[in-house]
Structure formats: C-alpha cells, structure tokens
C-alpha cells in the first residue's frame, strides 16, 4: 500500500510538472502564464454555464412529472461515456506507451501497485473532464432540489468516484488487447493495431449501446413509467454503468434511508470493479507491458535494390517533411494522438446517426441535404468548419517544436534556416490534415453523392483552413515550446500549447463562420468570402512567422 502511495506521488509530480513550456521563470513569464490560465478559465466558463442552464431547463420540465432525477442520470451517463472514451486513450498512453515503464519494471513492485498508481493518475486527470460536464450538473441539481448537507456530501463523493467505473472498463479492455497483441517479432506493429482495435471497439460499443437503449424502451413502457413519477425512471437508468443509477437515486433523495442503501450499492459495485481490475492486472499487465518498447529489427544487409531506393538525394524541405511524417506515424503516442485522431473525428460525427434506431433514415436525410444545391452554401461553411476543427485538434503543428524535446539542439546546429524548418513543420501538419479532410470529402462524394464541384470547393476551402490552423499552431508552440519532457505523452497530450492553439483557431474561425451562417449566403459568395478572407489572414500569419516566428526559434536555447 505504501509503495502504491509513494509511486502515485512521484507519477503525479512528474506528470503535472508543468504543462507549459520550459521553466525559465522570470516574473514576466509567470505573469504571462497566469494570464493564460485566466484566459483558458474564462473561455471555458460559458460552457460551464451552458451546461448549468441546460440542467435547469431539463430539471424544470421533468420535475412536473416528478422525474427530475433523470437529469442526473443523463449527466452521469454523458460523463461516464466521455470518460470511458478518453480513458481508452489515456490508459493506453499512461499504462503502456509511457516512457517511465522501463524505469518501473526493474523496481520490486507488484503489477497491482504500478497499475494502482497509474490508475490514480488517470483518475485525477479525468477530474478535469468532469469539471465541464458533471460539476455544473451537480451544482444546478443541488440548488434546484435544495438537498442540503447530505446532498453536498454525496455529490462530492460521487464527483470523486464516478470516473472509476468507466476507467476500469477502459483499462480492462486495453489490458486484454495489449496482452494478446504483445507477441511475436513485429510487436510494435501489433501494438499499433491493438490500439486501433481498442478505439474501434470503443466506438462500436458506443453505437451498440445507444441503439440498445433507444430500442429497448417501447413508448408504452416509457409512458407508464413517466406516469408513475417518483423518479422511478432513474432506477432503470442504464445497464452498462449500473452504479450510476444507484448514485442518482441517492442524490435525488439525500435525506432518506433509501439514499443510504443505494449509495451502499454504488460503493459496493465500484469497489468490486476495482478488485476485479487489480486481480486481472496481476494476471495480464506484465505480460502485456514487458517488451512494449522493443523495436523489431531484421539485422540483415540491405539488398542493393533497397539501398538504391533509400539512398537518393531529395530537396531538403521535402526530406524534412518526410522525416516529420515518418516520426508521427512510427511513434505510437504521436500516431494515436496526431494521426489517428485526424481520421477518427469523422467517425465521431457519424456515431449519433448510426446510433439512431431509424439510423438509415437519418443518413438518407443527410444524404439528401448533401446532394441538394439549395444547401450548398451552408455545406461549404460546414466543410470549412470541420476542416478547422480536425486540423486544430490533431495538434501536429501546435506540438511540432515541443516534440523535438531535449533534442532541439539538433535544429540549432544544422545548416538549415529557421524559416525552412518552420515551413517544413507547417507543411507536414498541412499534409496530414489534408489527407484527413480530403478523404472525408471524397467519402461524402461517393457515399452521399455530394456534387463534384462542391467537393472541389470544400477541398480548396479546407486548404485555407488547414494552413490557418497550422500557422497559428506552430506560432503558439514557438512562443514557449514544452521541451522538458521524459516521455512523448507529455509533448502532445499534456501540452498546453495544443489547447491554446485549438481554442484560438476555433475562436477566430467562429468569428468568420457565424456571419456566413446567419446571412444564409449561397455557395459562390461563401466560397469567395472564405478564400479571400483566409488568403489575407494566412498571408499575414505567414509574414508573422517569417519575422517574429524565426526570432522566437532563434531564441530557444537548448
């Protein structure tokens, strides 16, 4: 137990270290950081109040039929699903691909101690996710239901413990996949595939569950339960996270005995799952994680053909771009977070549709819209918006300096100008993002019969979008790159630069997109506005990078 606590403390210290750039802390920098925190906090506040407002509205509607507890069920459900989903990523990164594994394995620790510590770290990270979803729900519900002190106590415990069940699910899923893909000589490849399987399962799971929930509730049943009132709907809540239902009941009647009983069930279920997790961990974890960083090697002479193919002169910018992209694809953590995410977003957008029982019907409606000229203007705006979103969230440009880490000195002694290095990094981000967005448009063209001219316009707008996010991203990363990391996870996931750049991109893009939507322009004016506006913006950003950006690069000291 004490080993578990010590390890947890060290992992937390190491991990939270500083999400910002390298720690040369002058007062000016400290102030800058404080302002950044404030900026992030303020820009998140609207979301927080939006969730509170929604909770209030739904609460009022449901309280008329005395089913207000459903708000909590809904809030818990969304939180748990979000955590399960992010959990798949977190767990695979923190439990398996994190660089500290090699230092932990030689220590006299049990698998369950390492797992326990890493689990706790993941749990604490997930509190950040909860802040935006669960906390406003709990606060609004508490105020509305005036549950008093017992409510507050239950609410705090629920906030702290709710992520446990979804993370355990994510962890068990990953442990099984990693155990059975950690085999053979090409284990690096297998593991990459394992990671993809994990995510596919998560997505598939999501779709199936949503369908299941939608299907298994006949309108008559629902009506009957609604009429019964007394929060009876809460108890049927959902079948995958049974503990959530218990917690919801406890919170809807905090002063009563049944609250205590249900809370007991909640606690018992959570504890049983932890025990199952740790027991499985003892069996599976080491077998999955040992050798996780091994690279397959052939140790044989290259044939003269392979040699000829590899040893060719390439213009340096192209060569640099290829190098960047190779590293993104071959480093598991970069692959998961930067490459895979790029192609997963379109799938996320499709889930709600696929989950709908009348799924096919919903698709048909979308298809009809996509192929209808009347909506071409708005579709182009959406294409542009999705391109911004996809390329801003893959963080390739926004972490391109940070990813160099301690090896940043290499960039400083090679005879390649900072301008060229910046552009090579920008272009590698642009290319990967474009492959993502273009394939999305092509699929829309083939499956949904999106007209060819609209695909071409979307692709052109997408180029503007992707250049824009990449310029912004690298500029923000140049300001204060996070170079002081000991595993790649910290360069991409725990890097504040990617968050700031994401928000800046989405904010600026929203300013241009909203008017286009409001004025309902037709397609050619929309196209003309997007292209001319972003040609100008991108040109200014390019100039900024080539002047201020280059100076910032030169100032980075290794």
């Amino acid at each position, binding site marked *: 137990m004490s080993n578990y606590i010590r390890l947890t403390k060290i992992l937390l210290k190491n991990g939270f270290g500083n999400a910002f750039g390298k720690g040369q802390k002058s007062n000016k920098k400290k102030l800058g950081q404080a302002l950044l925190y404030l900026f992030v906090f303020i820009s998140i506040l609207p979301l927080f109040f939006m969730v509170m407002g929604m909770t209030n509205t739904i609460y009022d509607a449901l309280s008329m039929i005395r089913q207000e507890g459903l708000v909590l069920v809904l809030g818990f459900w969304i939180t748990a699903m979000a955590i399960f989903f992010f959990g798949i990523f977190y767990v695979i990164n923190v439990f398996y691909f994190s660089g500290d594994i090699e230092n932990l394995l030689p220590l006299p620790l049990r698998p369950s101690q390492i797992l326990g510590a890493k689990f706790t770290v993941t749990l604490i990270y997930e509190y950040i996710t909860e802040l935006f979803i669960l906390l406003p729900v709990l606060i609004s519900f508490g105020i509305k239901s005036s549950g008093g002190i017992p409510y507050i106590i239950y609410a705090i415990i629920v906030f702290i413990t709710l992520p446990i069940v979804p993370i355990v699910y994510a962890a068990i899923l990953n442990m099984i996949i990693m155990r059975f893909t950690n085999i053979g000589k090409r284990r690096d490849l297998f593991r990459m595939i394992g990671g993809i399987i994990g995510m596919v399962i998560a997505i598939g799971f999501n779709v199936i569950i949503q369908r299941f929930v939608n299907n298994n509730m006949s309108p008559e049943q629902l009506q009957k339960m609604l009429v019964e009132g007394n929060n009876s709907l809460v108890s049927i809540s959902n079948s995958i996270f049974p503990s959530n239902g218990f917690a919801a009941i406890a919170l809807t009647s905090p002063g009563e005995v049944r609250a205590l009983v249900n809370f007991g069930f909640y606690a018992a279920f959570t504890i049983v799952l932890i025990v199952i997790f740790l027991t499985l961990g003892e069996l599976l974890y080491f077998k999955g994680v040992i050798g996780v*960083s*091994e*690279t*397959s*090697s*052939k*140790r*044989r*002479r*290259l044939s003269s053909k*392979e*040699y000829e193919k*590899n*040893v*060719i*002169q*390439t*213009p*340096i910018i192209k*060569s*640099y771009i290829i*190098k960047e992209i*190779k*590293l993104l694809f*071959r*480093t598991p953590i970069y692959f998961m977070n930067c490459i895979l995410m790029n192609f997963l977003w379109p799938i996320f957008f499709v889930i709600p549709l696929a989950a709908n029982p009348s799924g096919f019907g919903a698709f048909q409606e979308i298809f009809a819209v996509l192929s209808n000229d009347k909506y071409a203007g708005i579709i182009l705006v959406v294409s542009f918006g999705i391109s911004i979103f996809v390329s801003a969230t893959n963080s390739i440009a926004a972490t391109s300096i940070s990813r160099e880490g*301690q*090896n940043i*000195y*290499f960039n*400083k*002694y*090679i*005879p*390649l*100008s900072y301008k060229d290095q910046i552009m090579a990094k920008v272009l590698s981000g642009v290319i990967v993002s474009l492959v993502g967005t273009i394939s999305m448009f092509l699929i829309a063209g083939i499956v949904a019969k999106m007209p060819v001219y609209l695909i071409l316009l979307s692709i052109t707008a997408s180029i503007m979008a992707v250049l824009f996010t990449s310029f912004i991203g690298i500029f923000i990363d140049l300001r204060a790159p996070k170079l002081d990391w000991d595993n790649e996870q910290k360069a991409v996931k725990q890097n504040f630069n990617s968050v700031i750049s994401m928000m800046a991109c989405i904010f600026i893009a929203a300013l241009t997109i909203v008017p286009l939507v409001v004025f309902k322009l037709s397609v050619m004016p929309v196209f003309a506005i997007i292209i001319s506006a972003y040609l100008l913006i991108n040109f200014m950003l390019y100039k900024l990078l080539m002047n201020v950006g280059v100076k910032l690069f*030169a100032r980075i*000291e*290794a």
Partner: protein
Amino acid sequence: MIEINNVSKSYNTKGKAVDSLNITIPNGEIIGFLGPNGAGKTTTIKMITGILSADEGSIKINGIDINEKPLEAKKQFGFVPDNPDMFLRLKGIEYLNFMADIYNVSGELRKQRIDELSGRFEMTDVLGDQISSYSHGMRQKIVIMGVLVHSPSVWILDEPMTGLDPKSSFLLKEMMREHANSGKTVFFSTHVLEVAEKVCDRIAIINKGKILYYGTVHEMRNNLKTDESLEKMFLEMTENE
C-alpha cells in the same frame, strides 16, 4: 580553424559559465578539450556550434562568424553531440540519407560514403533497422557516420568515445588523425585523459569557465617541471583553482 575571441556566457546572474574565453584551434591538429564536470566544456561547444549564443565575444569557423552568417558557418563543421539518442524511430539508412540531404551531398557521393563508412564501422547489417533497436555504441557510431557522410572540414565532437567498443574507438582515433594530417581541424572534449594524452596534438584545460592551460602535454610537463602523468597534473591544476 576555429577562432574564439573574448567569449562569455552566463546562465544566471551569479557567475559566468564561460568567462572571456580566448582560444584558436588551428588546422592540421587534434585538440582535446578537458575539464571537470560543469567546467564549461559543453557550453563552449554549444556556442561554437550555434546551439547557444554567446553573451559577448565572437566565434569564427574557417573565418566565418557563427552569429553573422550562421548557415554558412554551420556548413563548415560536423558535430557529434554527447547524447546519441536522436531520431530513434528512423532507420539507420534513413538517418544517414537525411543528414546527407541537409548538407546537400550528391546522390553518387553519398552512396559511396555510406557504403564505405558502414563497412568500416561494421554497421552494414543494421542500416535497415530503426535506430531505437541499436545499442548505445551503435547509436554513437551512426551519429558519427551522419557527420562523416558530409565530410566537413571541421570536426567538433563532444565525448565521442563514450560507449564505443575498442575497435570502433581505435578506428575513430585513426580517422581523427587522418583528418588532421590532411590539414583539417579536429576539436573534441573528453573525460578520458589517456585518450587525450595519446591522441591530441594539444590540449586545452578549462575550469570554472576559464582556460587554465593550452598547449602540448610535453610543454605542460616542462612548465610544471615534473614527470607526472596527465591525470595527476590535471587533478592538481583543477583543484588548485
């Protein structure tokens, strides 16, 4: 040739990591750079290579100022850093080809050089594998090969012998000698005093950011009027500071 004139660098307000350094590394000689941990060796090397900028003073490589014409100056030298863990996800051959691209080595020439170097360093069988699968010594060799593939006139090596097996270490020393004998420059830092004593034409000893001694080991003995080993002289000199 490397000319360092009046170069100073401090990381904080207290003391200087390098203090008014003056030293000229001539052509045709191997110069060893010695000093205890934290003496300013790596800081000096980083300033020569453009990784750090000096607070004051100037550094010229083959007559080209690293601050005024950084790209031109950087083309003059090849640098072996003390930590060879770079580009671990690239294959050896990809790394060498990338380095050749950076230094604009023609296709034919690079083929010939990579062929020759991988043969001499016994790396032919691993070029197709990712560098992450290499041992420490193999990583060191691939980084050295990455420098030699563009055949720079000035070699700057930070602790190049670390991790090399005896044969590769011997080979590197031999190559350093050939390079110097052809009228070019070799400047390397080391902790291994035997290597310095045997290989270097001259040594520079630095401590607390200042050059304590610059000359041949032989002259040093004459000056100190002793028959002691370089190790003893080094320890006395750096401790008396």
